[in-house]
C-alpha cells in the first residue's frame, strides 16, 4: 500500500470522532437498546484504530488484525448477553427507560 496516499492521522481522527459520538450516546440515551448501539459504535472505533496501526506501523506482521478479530468475537458475545439482559429487564420492569433501572441506586 502506498503510505503517501492517506495519512495515518486521518484514520485516527475518524476513529476518535466515532468513539466520542459513542460516549455521548452512551451518556445521553434514555433507551437501553440505543445504549447497546453506542457501545457497538465505540468498539468499532477501537477496531478501526487497531486496523490503522496494523496497516501503517506493523505492516508485515499485522498483529493488529488478529486483535481486531478477537475484539469482534468479544463484541458478538457482549451483544448477545446484553440483549438477553435487556429482555429480562423488560419483562421485570415493562420499560426500556434507563432512568427506571434504579434498583442499585443508593
Amino acid at each position, binding site marked *: 500500500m502506498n503510505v*503517501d496516499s492517506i495519512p495515518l492521522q486521518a484514520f485516527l481522527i*475518524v476513529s*476518535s470522532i*466515532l468513539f466520542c459520538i459513542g460516549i455521548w450516546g452512551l451518556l445521553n440515551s434514555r433507551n437501553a437498546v440505543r445504549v447497546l448501539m453506542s457501545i457497538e*459504535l465505540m468498539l468499532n472505533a477501537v*477496531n478501526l484504530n487497531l486496523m490503522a496501526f496494523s496497516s501503517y506501523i*506493523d505492516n508485515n506482521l499485522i498483529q493488529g*488484525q488478529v486483535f481486531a478479530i478477537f475484539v469482534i468475537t468479544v463484541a458478538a458475545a457482549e451483544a448477545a448477553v446484553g*440483549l438477553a439482559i435487556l429482555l429480562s429487564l423488560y419483562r421485570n420492569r415493562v420499560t426500556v427507560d434507563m432512568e427506571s433501572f434504579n434498583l442499585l441506586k443508593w
Partner: protein
Amino acid sequence: MSIAVTTQLICFSILSLIIIVGSLGVVLLESIVYSAFLLGGVFMSVAGLYLLLNASFVAAAQVLVYVGAINVLILFAIMLVNKKEDLKPIKYLNSRKLISSTICITLLSLLVRVDLTDTWIIADPKLSIGEESTIRLGEHLFSDYLLPFEVASVLLLMAMIGAIVLARRDVLSEDISTGLPVDQELIEKSDKPLLTQKK
C-alpha cells in the same frame, strides 16, 4: 491495494463522511428503528475502510458478524421491546446534556491533539504484506495466537448459554392452580409483565 491514490482519497472521504453522519444519526434520531438501520450502514462503511487498509478478511468478518449477526439481533430486540411509552421528565436534563457534551468535546480535542502532534513511526511500505494478509492472519491464529483463539471459542459457548438462560421464560405449559393451558405467545403482551404470578 493497487488502486490509484485519488480513488483511495475519494473512497476514504465518502466512507468517513457516512461513518460520522451515520453515527450521529444513531445517537440523535428519535426513532430507534432508523437508528438500527443507520448502525448497519456505519458497520458497512467501517468494513469499507478495512478494505482500504488491505484487510479483506477482517472486512468480511465485520460484514458477517456486525451486519449479519449483531445488527439483526438488535433489530429483533427492538421488535421484542417495541412499546410506545412516554418517558417521564427528569430533573437537570439540560445541565446533564451540557456536562456530557463538554466532556465528549474535551476528550475529542485531546484525542485529536494526540493524533496530530505525536510522531508515528511509519513502517517501510516495501515490507508491507499487502493482499497476502489473510494468509498471515491464518498463520497467526494457528501458531502464536492459538491459545486466545481456543479461549475465544469457550467464551462464545459461555455467552450462548448465558444468553439462553437469561432470556428464557419460565412458563409452564399449564397453569398450576387451574390446570388450564397457558398461552405461550412469542410476542410480549404490552399490558402485563410476564414474570408476575398468574393467579
